[in-house]
């Protein structure tokens, strides 16, 4: 139990220093991306900044040991987005401590605040803001303590490198100043923050703290966690949604080498084995022995738009400010569609669980340790305080993938083998076949242009399932739905605007005098769906920004100029202008020019994520091969305004990744199914971006806004990248592609070579 021991002993050390064991607000965190107003209901003083609202005690965020070591706590999880490093930068800055003095503890129901899900580009806004204020207030407390000892006014003290310095030069190390309970105080709504001109750690390219272990074979992921005595679990999933396990002859499997136990509960079937490859073989044998009754009926994947239009809808008015269009207005209309899209994590989901002394501990790469804990506790019929979920990194998830389900699986197997840690590793086929996909969507838009070439009227409707079926409820876990006493699939809810789900970013940022936006929310979910990076924003921005190009063409105006004509937010305008200038938009040297068997084209797109978070504009060049219809992005230039930049390289990394991932969704990706089963279950049947399609160059320009609020940027690039690629393909080919993905086959069919 070396690993577990390490964790507990560190905890004990922390508990004995400068802080009490803390307790957290029991207020349930709002569902992903619920409006910021979803705050505690108790009659509270003025709202605290960021996640201090949920966990108002300073020592929930910052602890100082007597030896001067500082620990930062966050309820958010490291998903590969670099959040550990960025939060440490924020803490070091406001504490005036050395970056290397700081350690960070991430999402753990036993140790950190409940910050809900690590999702929606919220981590810097929620946790970053909380830590910024908590660190500033801790610093003030330490200054006050030092001032008292030095017998001078706090205003006369300065801080530097983890110490308070008196006017006479005496230094008081933070560790010497801290005393029991000193930091166990409620945060104030206001903090004395540093002047951005004095920043040492913000807007600096600090190398990520998690990378060295990842490139040297360190223990970096839950997949690498091997507590003593660990057994290997494998699940045998049904062949299709809703299939019932009819019979399974386990006799032969039970005799296989290493097999400890076969676990069957209703239609939940699994095997626990001593060694990993033995587990793989036992799983295969068990799958071959299982007889299932399949009853599921999946829709026709070639007719998804018709399906979406037919499903019963709950209409949500997003914007209803329509005026009569001018009589002579020119109107155009278009319909855009997207299929189901997979998260496609490179590492299939994994979890380790152990039931010991009536406490269940689960190491999981979930995005939300608390909601996952709640779901698991309900499924196991255990009190919540007897279940602890500890975040441990997994492969990138980009939303709700199989992580929570795998954690649920591991919990069930741990109960079957009390005392021993059990590791559950999903297969590639299970991940691609059972994860909840990003939902299929449809958009219909029509708009009118007035005499001056400006949009006079905008009428937009988006059809979509929910974009969050995450835990909380036990029924959100696959395993729970297949137990002998199953938990029902939870009822889907639309995520309300201003953040929105299917309607996220359906409200154009542009100034149109007359606008109607309708969200046709579809409760019935023929295919399992949930949150995929940027939720509905990807599809809405793809549609709006494609259509803006169509409108620009109808108005005879350059696409960038057309956007600027409808934008009055100066930050939006600066992002658009910066991307255009840095790209050399006005030149477009190869537009429409036939190259060697290819046509080149240029595309531009812009959005402010959720109209609340980061601004992002992208210009790109594509080449489209005449023979194959293959489109490739040649180069891309992005401009982004994330408010106060914390780690510019981290922001650039997120935007670069968003451009490439979104390009992959846009050009290739489509979950496939027949009338009963998901059939895109490996990388041959679900192809994604490979190196041969990677651009020659990419640039990300960051517009720093010193002292302004952090704006999440993890998902800001998804929508603009899709539309920029689509617009460039339209520019190269003369054809507008409105159905995703824009595959080589579709392009070839359209350009008719």
């Amino acid at each position, binding site marked *: 139990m070396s690993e577990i021991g390490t964790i507990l002993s560190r905890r004990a050390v922390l508990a004995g220093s400068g802080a009490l064991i803390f307790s957290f607000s029991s207020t349930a965190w709002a569902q992903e991306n619920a409006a910021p107003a979803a705050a505690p209901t108790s009659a509270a003083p003025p709202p605290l900044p960021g996640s201090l609202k949920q966990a108002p005690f300073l020592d929930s965020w910052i602890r100082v040991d007597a030896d001067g070591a500082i620990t930062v706590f966050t309820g958010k999880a490291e*998903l*590969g*987005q670099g959040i550990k490093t960025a939060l440490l930068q924020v803490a070091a800055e406001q504490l005036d401590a050395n970056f290397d003095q700081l350690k960070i503890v991430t999402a753990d129901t036993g140790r950190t605040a409940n910050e809900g899900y690590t999702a929606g580009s919220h981590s810097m806004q929620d946790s970053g803001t909380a830590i910024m204020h908590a660190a500033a207030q801790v610093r003030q407390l330490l200054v006050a303590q030092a001032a008292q000892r030095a017998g001078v006014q706090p205003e006369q003290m300065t801080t530097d490198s983890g110490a308070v310095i008196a006017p006479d030069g005496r230094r008081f190390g933070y560790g010497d100043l801290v005393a029991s309970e000193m930091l166990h105080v409620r945060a104030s709504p206001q903090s004395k923050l540093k002047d951005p001109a004095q920043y040492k750690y913000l807007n600096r390219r600090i*190398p*990520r703290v*998690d*990378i*060295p*272990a*990842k*490139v*040297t*074979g*360190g*223990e*970096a*992921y839950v*997949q*690498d966690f*091997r507590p003593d005595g660990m057994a290997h679990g494998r699940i045998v999933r049904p062949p299709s949604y809703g299939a019932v396990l009819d019979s399974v002859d386990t006799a032969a499997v039970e005799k296989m*080498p290493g097999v400890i136990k076969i676990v069957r509960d209703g239609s939940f079937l699994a095997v626990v084995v001593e*060694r*990993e*490859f033995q587990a*793989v073989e036992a799983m295969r044998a068990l799958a071959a022995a299982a007889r299932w009754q399949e009853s599921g009926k999946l829709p026709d994947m070639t007719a998804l738009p018709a399906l979406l239009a037919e499903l019963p809808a709950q209409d949500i008015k997003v914007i209803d400010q329509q005026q009569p269009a001018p009589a002579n207005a020119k109107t155009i209309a278009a319909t855009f569609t997207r299929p189901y899209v997979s998260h*496609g*994590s*490179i*590492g*299939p989901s994994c979890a380790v669980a152990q039931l010991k002394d009536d406490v269940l501990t689960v190491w999981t790469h979930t995005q939300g340790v608390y909601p996952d804990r709640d779901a698991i506790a309900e499924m196991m019929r255990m009190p919540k305080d007897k279940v602890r979920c500890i975040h441990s*990194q*997994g*492969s*990138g998830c*980009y939303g709700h993938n199989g992580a929570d389900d795998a954690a649920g699986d591991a919990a069930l197997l741990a109960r079957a083998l009390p005392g021993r840690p059990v590791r559950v*590793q999903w*297969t*590639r086929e299970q991940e691609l076949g059972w994860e909840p996909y990003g939902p299929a969507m449809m958009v219909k838009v029509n708009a009118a242009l007035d005499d001056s070439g400006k949009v006079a009227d905008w009428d937009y409707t988006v059809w979509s399932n929910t974009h969050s079926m995450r835990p909380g409820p036990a029924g959100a876990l696959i395993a729970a739905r297949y137990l002998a006493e199953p938990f029902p699939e939870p009822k889907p809810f639309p995520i309300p605007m201003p953040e929105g789900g299917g309607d996220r970013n359906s409200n154009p940022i542009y100034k149109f005098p007359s606008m109607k936006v309708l969200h046709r929310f579809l409760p019935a979910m023929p295919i399992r769906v949930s949150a995929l990076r940027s939720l509905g924003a990807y599809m809405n921005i793809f549609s709006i920004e494609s259509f803006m190009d169509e409108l620009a063409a109808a108005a005879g105006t350059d696409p960038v100029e057309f956007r600027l004509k409808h934008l009055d937010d100066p930050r939006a305008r600066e992002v658009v202008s910066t991307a255009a200038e840095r790209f050399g938009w006005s030149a477009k040297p190869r537009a429409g020019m036939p190259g060697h068997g290819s046509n080149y084209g240029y595309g531009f797109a812009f959005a402010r994520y959720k109209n609340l978070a980061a601004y992002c504009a992208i210009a790109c060049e594509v080449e489209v091969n005449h023979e194959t219809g293959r489109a490739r992005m040649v180069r891309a230039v992005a401009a982004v305004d994330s408010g106060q930049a914390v780690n510019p*390289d981290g922001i650039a*990394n*997120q935007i*670069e*990744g*968003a*451009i*490439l*991932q979104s390009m*992959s969704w846009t050009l290739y990706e489509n979950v496939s199914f027949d009338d009963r089963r998901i059939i895109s279950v*490996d*990388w*041959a049947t679900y192809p*994604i*971006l*490979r*190196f*041969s399609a*990677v*651009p020659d*160059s*990419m640039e990300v320009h960051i517009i720093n806004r010193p002292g302004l609020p952090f704006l999440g940027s993890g998902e800001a690039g998804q929508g603009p990248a899709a539309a920029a690629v689509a617009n460039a393909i339209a520019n190269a080919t003369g054809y507008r592609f409105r159905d995703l993905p824009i595959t080589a086959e579709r392009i070839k069919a359209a350009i008719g070579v």
Partner: protein
Amino acid sequence: MKLNVNNAQHDVDADPRTPLLYVLRGDLKLNAAKFGCGLGQCGACTVLVNGEPVFSCVTPIALLEGKEITTLEGLGTEEKPAPIQQAFIESQAAQCGYCIPGMMMRAQALLQKNPHAGDAEIRAWLEPNLCRCGSHMRILRAIHRAQHIIRTAQRGEAG
């Protein structure tokens, strides 16, 4: 059976049909090679066998006796990183990082064969390996940087 991994002999008590990946991760407790698909489709499990990149998830150990197996751990450590590791750190060439060890081992094989490989050759060489975070530009930058580090070191030795 005996396996030579990272210049050390290991007695491995496993079914000869066992794919190398499970022996590396389970028996030798090496973390770098990752399970990604078990199908030889993504490259997350890539290691070197006699200098050639191999999908360890589909290579049974029965084929490997007497061969030199190298994993990322065999190149360098956090304290003394190899050029390819130093280059990936300096280029911050990872997001989640799960695919990165496989990328590095495939790149390492190329750099050992042809330290002067050009950009087009590097891209073609990496085609079997998948990255989902979209770190491709950084991965390419890191490999070019590794070439630079190797060349600089060689010039230093020569001088």
